[in-house]
């Protein structure tokens, strides 16, 4: 009985959070068809640093010091923020779940046919564009084609220390602050939005991977997995169909938190002037322009408020009581 008000509050907070996120999501989706008076990234050179609600102006929320319409930038910025962050979080969670799930299921006992290992090695060589990348692609093609043949016969097997590899990589990523890592990566190569997405995914998969690996260690010894193994199902199928879906359960909580983190990171990068080019509208970039016009409060209030509320809403979604646990 004493816990009822807290539950009520949590349910209320969750409803508000969902409403807010739906509103931002709708803005992002409908941005191109909304009747906005100005297109994004178009400077109005006659009106720069214009305060909001100035009489006789169609810039309802004012303009930034480059003459861009703040309302348009906010709406299209929501599109960029959600588009980039949601996709990056989904991809990072998927990658983390696969790697962490495999590491927790097979530990260091996975054995791959030698020829498949050579194929994977060639593929990695080609993907990293190391010297002689063409030869790597040939090795990959031969190796992966040979895997069909090798799986049918018994061949030399190669142990793959999957668990050690994944744990090592997550420890390595965890040792360097993510912002520093992204700034270094983004600073060393010119990034397109797709490139930035890649960098965000590469630096964000470690958290979900650790969660899923830990859960997989628990799930792997559960009776239903043991039963599936006892039925003689191939290990790959047991992993994919039975163990992995169960092990991914913690991601339900981690997803909104990861999304909030990436949203903040993307805005921080834009604020620092790294990553997205200036023609891509972004809340962080709008915040950044406030440096040029220290008295322009509307450049801080608009994007700062949207960012704060969205991150708070995502955090409210991921709280255990909100999940009904």
């Amino acid at each position: 009985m004493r816990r009822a008000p807290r539950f009520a509050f949590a349910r209320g907070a969750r409803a508000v959070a969902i409403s807010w996120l739906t509103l931002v999501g709708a803005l992002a989706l409908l941005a191109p068809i909304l009747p906005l008076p100005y297109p994004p990234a178009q400077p109005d050179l006659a009106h720069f640093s214009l305060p909001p609600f100035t009489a006789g102006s169609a810039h309802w929320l004012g303009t930034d010091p480059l003459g861009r319409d703040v309302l348009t930038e906010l709406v299209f910025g929501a599109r960029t923020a959600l588009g980039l962050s949601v996709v990056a979080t989904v991809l990072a969670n998927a990658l983390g779940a696969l790697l962490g799930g495999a590491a927790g299921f097979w530990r260091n006992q996975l054995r791959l046919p030698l020829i498949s290992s050579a194929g994977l090695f060639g593929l990695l060589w080609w993907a990293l564009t190391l010297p002689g990348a063409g030869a790597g692609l040939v090795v990959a093609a031969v190796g992966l084609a040979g895997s069909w043949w090798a799986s049918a016969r018994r061949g030399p097997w190669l142990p793959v220390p999957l668990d050690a590899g994944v744990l090592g990589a997550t420890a390595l990523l965890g040792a360097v602050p993510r912002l520093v890592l992204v700034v270094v990566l983004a600073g060393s190569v010119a990034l397109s939005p797709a490139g930035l997405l890649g960098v965000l995914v590469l630096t964000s998969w470690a958290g979900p991977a650790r969660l899923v690996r830990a859960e997989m260690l628990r799930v792997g010894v559960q009776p239903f997995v043991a039963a599936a193994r006892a039925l003689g199902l191939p290990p790959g199928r047991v992993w994919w169909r039975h163990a992995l879906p169960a092990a991914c359960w913690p991601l339900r909580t981690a997803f909104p938190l990861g999304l909030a983190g990436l949203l903040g990171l993307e805005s921080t990068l834009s604020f620092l002037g790294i990553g997205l080019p200036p023609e891509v509208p972004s809340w962080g970039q709008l915040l950044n322009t406030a440096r040029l016009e220290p008295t322009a409060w509307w450049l801080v209030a608009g994007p700062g408020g949207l960012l704060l509320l969205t991150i708070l809403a995502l955090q409210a979604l991921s709280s255990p009581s909100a999940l009904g646990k």
Partner: protein
Amino acid sequence: MPKIRLVGDSLTLLTYCLRGAAAWDNGQPVLASDVAFTLKLMQAPGLHNEGIRTQFSFIRELRADPNNARRFTLVCRGQASDFAHASGDFFILPEAALDARGTLRRYRLADLIDRPTNAAPDTVLAAIAQRYVAAAPGRHPERLPGCGPYRLVSWEKDHRLRFQRKPQWWADQLKSPPLVLQAHPQQIDFLVIPDGASAALALRRGEVDLYPEVPARDFNRLRRSAKAQQTLAFYITPSHNVVTAGFNTRRPALADRLTRQALALLFDVPALLAAAQQGLGQRTVGIISPNTDRNYADSLPLLSFAPNRAAALLQQAGWRQKAADPAAGWMRQGPGGEVQRLALQVRYRADETTFTTIGLQFRAAAARLGIAVELRPTEASAFLSTLKAGDFDLYIRLVRGNPYLFNFTSVLHSEAAGEDNLTGFGTPDSDRLVEALAVAQSPAIRGRLLRKLQVELREEMPLVPLFFQYNCLAANRRLRHLYPSSLRPGYAAAAITWAPQAILP
């Protein structure tokens, strides 16, 4: 200034005499042999001095006066009127410190200039170059004796440089030293504050006394502030710095002048000048400042913002837009039958707001015509190397000019393409003009050639000079003798004195 003597129609003799009092820090006099050594070192292989090498390659020989070790004559190829000015515009290095045995004396300056790039390596020249690189005078001036009034006492990279007045300096003995030989402050600190707003704040707080090249936005904000007016004085001088867009003429899509002319019409210069510079600048037709009447091509009209005319010019250049799908952009067939697409990647320095505004305006204007433009702000450290590598379609940058130097060989001649000639432009006509300009014999001839060059550049349009900036300087009101000028750095640091506190209201 030197004594000038013209020989025949192709040689100039400039006779200089160094001041008797001029001495290095170790007390040794500055001699003609030091000047000869410096000129030879400029031309020595193995050093990264390509820019300075071409700038001074007109000096073919230094004839020392046998009766006076401080007197010498420079033999210059050509008879340009600005030789007298240009020939004295370099720092002299001490021969005794870098080449005590005088090994460089056996080489003739002209031989070093004409030395082919593929010549066999020379151990003596390599040793000199190595010694100079090892001394690293740029980073460690204390390793070489100098002859200036200040010495560097501390250097925190990207933060602060501190110079202290030498207690004894040779020019102190002069009775009435000219402006360039005055050195009043006992200590000068240069602070590096990359962010304009932080620099303006530091000036208001009194943490710095002088702020040159203030961005127009910050300058106007300071000027409007009643509080800042009480402590600060504001100076505006015309500058020779022109904000310029440049096309990569080596790209097939930008190789013809009609396309470049069309794209140049997409810059809305008056609006940009009003917005990005808040009016603190001057429109121009070319790379020569409108304030130099004799040289400025005033017969040319200013560029107008005309997207419709741009579209017509693009069609004239062979570009076509698919009627069914205007979003596909402009296409044409190249000479080899290949399909070219008009899409531009614009590079500019990431920390410059003015360039971002220009980029966004150009992009918006191009987008209305269906031309895709990608903006690529580039880190300041990587910017120039990216442009030299040709990794751009259009750049926006500030070109710093000098009212005394009209040798454009390194920036506009086709032979310098891939080096300082970033656009890669050069036609036989423009090359001839640039060569003739470098050796123009009188200001009148030079003016005529400069006007012709501007007309040629307007026609070919490898560069779009947008506007000249003003040099905005804000300084503590108690500072006197700043001598704000159009030349970099825009003030005379060593000549500055403090007015007494009492004169302030």
